[in-house]
């Protein structure tokens, strides 16, 4: 990559098949935003169905095609919407959209590298992601509807088209899309790992890396460890579906006949799925944590509190995250002793999570907080992460999970701790690094409106949802009217839906701000937030290879904010220690 800037760039190599990490990062972001719009829109549709069950809406008529009758949503498509919403949000928005965008943008820039270790693999990784997004979107137009067995696609439901129409072609496309997605993630993750290990600039010791890089790095490792297992699970499911094997199926009587499957077990699939599925939630949340740590330190004008403890907890979380998957299947019929083990490991994860939360709060303490939109989202992150994390202590306890498993309580829990939090982290990152991506600034006032409406809506949807769950209402119910016992929940459901619509619409503010700022935003200066990290030493206009001359050398850690004895309240990592200055 040392011959930067010499070869001719065509439109195609610059904007489409680009190997430049900055362009690839933007491609990930735009694709992620597009998928996010689809996913959030779906949630508004199915929330409307829950609030006003079997009501006729012209929106349904317009968007649901043959899956509605006179504007009334069909039960099958309700399940399909929930399934695709979950899949898109978790994988396409918060895995690829989040990690893909910020690992790509920041790893080379913050460690002082000209580009990723392999620009070519990086490009392939993006295009595989694009292809898998395309297939997932195409699956929405299949005659019998897209996959509808929940984002967890448990067989036999996901294996048998007789059981639900979405398990026909829709499910095939889902599996193909996910297999490609996994390949994309693996290529990306391997690249991130190699780049962080090998391409750090002179002086950039591992202990001088910003926490953002630490999180991206560890996230990539978790991905490499766990995604292949999902791929294996998906392949075996394809075999069961298409070639008549019985990995997951046994003793099934459906549609008036006994199927030939013998000896398999759906519980095997559940183990394999959650062996990825649980680490996956950390793949989603760790990059957000890294972004928040970075944004918070910059805007508090303070070092992040407990840098080493933060790294230790990231690693502890990563390790523990691979041995807790069983807490999703306490009542699957697995041996209760296993349940005990998983309760133990699960509750342990609360410890590093608590350490991180307290460290963020202490970072705020006695800071000089610059309340930019990115900072607001970071603070919002800590709030939702704590609210959602605490209910994890309830779910993680097997004895308590018996009664809240698969109710709306879990929906409230994971949306707060993973969904909303990670989305906040993503927004924080976009507001903060937008000048680095597009050379312009996003509008502040719109950012504020976006934050406040989103924050109110998010709690308005997901806080009352806990009560619905504790009242015993199962998730994935097309309507609650079949049980008069739940009639008193109808009001709450209406309230939550209004907040969901409000929150969804608030994202229009973000979209407008984002796209208008690309063209009309105020031109950025080189280091608008007065931050320490290396990305702010690169020129505003993107160049291939990032730095025009030599790559700068690093002399200090990333967090010398407001250090006594220095004139400014920040100090770039590239500035050598002053005489007599102690390294932090």
């Amino acid at each position, binding site marked *: 990559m040392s011959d930067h800037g010499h070869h001719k760039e065509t439109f195609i190599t610059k904007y489409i098949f680009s190997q430049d990490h900055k362009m690839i990062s933007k491609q990930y972001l735009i694709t992620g935003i597009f998928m996010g719009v689809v996913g959030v829109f779906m949630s508004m549709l199915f929330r409307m169905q829950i609030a006003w069950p079997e009501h006729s809406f012209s929106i349904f008529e317009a968007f649901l095609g043959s899956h509605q009758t006179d504007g009334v949503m069909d039960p099958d498509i309700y399940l399909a919407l929930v399934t695709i919403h979950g899949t898109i949000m978790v994988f396409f928005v918060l895995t690829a959209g989040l990690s893909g965008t910020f690992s790509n943008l920041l790893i080379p820039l913050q460690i002082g590298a000209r580009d990723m270790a392999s620009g070519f693999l990086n490009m392939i990784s993006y295009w595989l992601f694009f292809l898998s997004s395309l297939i997932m979107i195409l699956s929405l137009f299949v005659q019998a509807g897209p996959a509808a067995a929940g984002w967890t696609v448990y067989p036999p439901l996901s294996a048998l088209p007789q059981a639900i129409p979405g398990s026909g072609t829709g499910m095939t496309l889902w599996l193909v899309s996910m297999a490609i997605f996994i390949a994309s993630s693996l290529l990306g993750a391997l690249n991130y790992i190699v780049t962080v290990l090998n391409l750090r600039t002179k002086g950039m010791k591992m202990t001088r890396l910003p926490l953002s890089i630490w999180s991206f790095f560890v996230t990539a490792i978790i991905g490499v460890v766990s995604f292949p297992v999902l791929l294996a699970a998906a392949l075996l499911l394809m075999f069961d579906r298409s070639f008549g094997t019985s990995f997951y199926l046994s003793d099934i009587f459906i549609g008036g006949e006994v199927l030939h499957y013998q000896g398999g077990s759906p519980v095997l699939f559940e183990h394999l799925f959650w062996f990825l599925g649980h680490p996956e939630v950390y793949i989603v949340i760790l990059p957000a944590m890294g972004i928040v740590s970075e944004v918070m330190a910059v805007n508090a004008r303070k*070092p992040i509190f407990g840098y080493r403890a933060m790294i230790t907890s990231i690693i502890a979380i990563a390790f523990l995250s691979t041995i807790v998957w069983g807490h999703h299947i306490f009542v699957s019929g697995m041996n209760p002793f296993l349940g005990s083990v998983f309760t133990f490991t699960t509750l342990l994860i609360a*410890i590093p999570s608590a350490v991180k939360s307290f460290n963020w709060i202490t970072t705020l303490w006695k800071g000089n907080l610059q309340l930019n939109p990115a900072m607001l989202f970071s603070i919002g992150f800590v709030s939702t992460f704590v609210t959602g994390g605490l209910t994890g*202590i309830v779910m993680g306890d097997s004895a308590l999970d018996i009664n809240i498993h698969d109710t709306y309580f879990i929906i409230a829990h994971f949306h707060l701790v993973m969904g909303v939090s990670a989305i906040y982290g993503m927004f924080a990152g976009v507001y903060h690094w937008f000048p680095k991506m597009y050379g312009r600034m996003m509008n*502040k006032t719109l950012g504020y409106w976006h934050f406040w409406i989103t924050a109110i809506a998010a709690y308005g949807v997901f806080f009352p949802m806990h009560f619905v769950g504790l009242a015993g209402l199962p998730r994935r119910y097309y309507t609650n009217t*079949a049980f008069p016992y739940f009639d008193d929940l109808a009001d709450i459901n209406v309230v939550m839906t209004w907040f969901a619509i409000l929150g969804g619409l608030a994202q229009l503010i973000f979209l407008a701000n984002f796209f208008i700022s690309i063209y009309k935003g105020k031109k950025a200066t080189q280091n608008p937030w007065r931050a320490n990290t290396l990305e702010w030493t690169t020129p505003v206009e993107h160049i291939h290879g990032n730095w025009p001359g030599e790559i700068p050398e690093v002399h200090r850690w990333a967090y010398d904010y407001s250090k006594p004895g220095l004139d400014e309240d920040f100090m770039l990592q590239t500035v050598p220690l002053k005489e007599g200055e102690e390294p932090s």
Partner: protein
Amino acid sequence: MLALFYIFIALVIATAFWQITNIFNLKEVIATDKDNETQGKLMLGFMLFFYGLMIFSFWKYYSVLLPEAASLEGQTIEGLYIATMLMILIAQGLVQFLIFWFTYKYRGNKNNKALHYADSHKLEMIWTIVPTVALAGLIIYGLTVWSDVMYPDNDKALIVEVYGKQFDWEVRYAGKDGVLGKANVHNIKGQNTMGVDMTDENAKDDIHIPTTVKEFYLPKGRKVIFKFRSQDVLHSAFMPHFRAQMNCVPGMVTQFAFTPSMTTEEMRANPKMIDKIANIKQIRLEKSEVLLKEGKEALEPYEFDYLLLCNKICGATHFNMQKKIKVVESAEFDKWIAEQKTLNEVL
């Protein structure tokens, strides 16, 4: 409702556009002291909103929560549940306060400088050790409850099989011998919808409650061991009032046990339940009036019953897979079960 919805959307979009055209003329893109001041105060306001929302939710929605557990095992779970909830509520109350208060208190100002405070071993020890101790307590308490619930002793227990299928439940009692006859999907035929192997001696006295019967009985005060099977896809037998749930897995028999501790009549007389049901009846009454006005049929009258519902996505009608559970005094149960026909008589 629909009109309201469209007006609402139109309003939001209009405001958004009005704001956008206004705002892009602004020069300032980085938070100023004035912004810090406003946003800091807004954060304080948001804290009040959030605490308000939490308190409001508890006050307003407390009545919808499940009433006390109707099984002995459920009651032990209830103790753990209350302890855990108290703990997380206290933590939530404190920690959220710190987040918003600090944001407000330390909102930025040109004349201030942040404290360069990068580390404190002591503080970090505190917030490693305090959660560790609290969690250790919860883990030990949790695991004892779990093993109480999951390792039932089998003496004199009533054995009941629950069979899930798209989209209904069937139930089978083990009969006089206390043993369920073998069963497999290959035996499903005609009225033998549960696939019971009728050559098995143990099956002859089993008692079958088919899908057409919408309720089944359990005795109060006697341990019931449930055996779960599924005919087609995963289902989950969820009996929230007893704090009981277990998946039904094709190809496998799963198990869960509890001891009902309150009859249906007793639960109906429970003060919390009386309020809840009165509320539900009121809601249904109002809905029925509207329906009648529209020339439709009124809603069916409602009386509380324990529920068995499906809690694992299983297809289109997953939302309506139900059976009622009648818990009665054991004498009454014995009488009821004696009146039922055995499988041998039926088939």
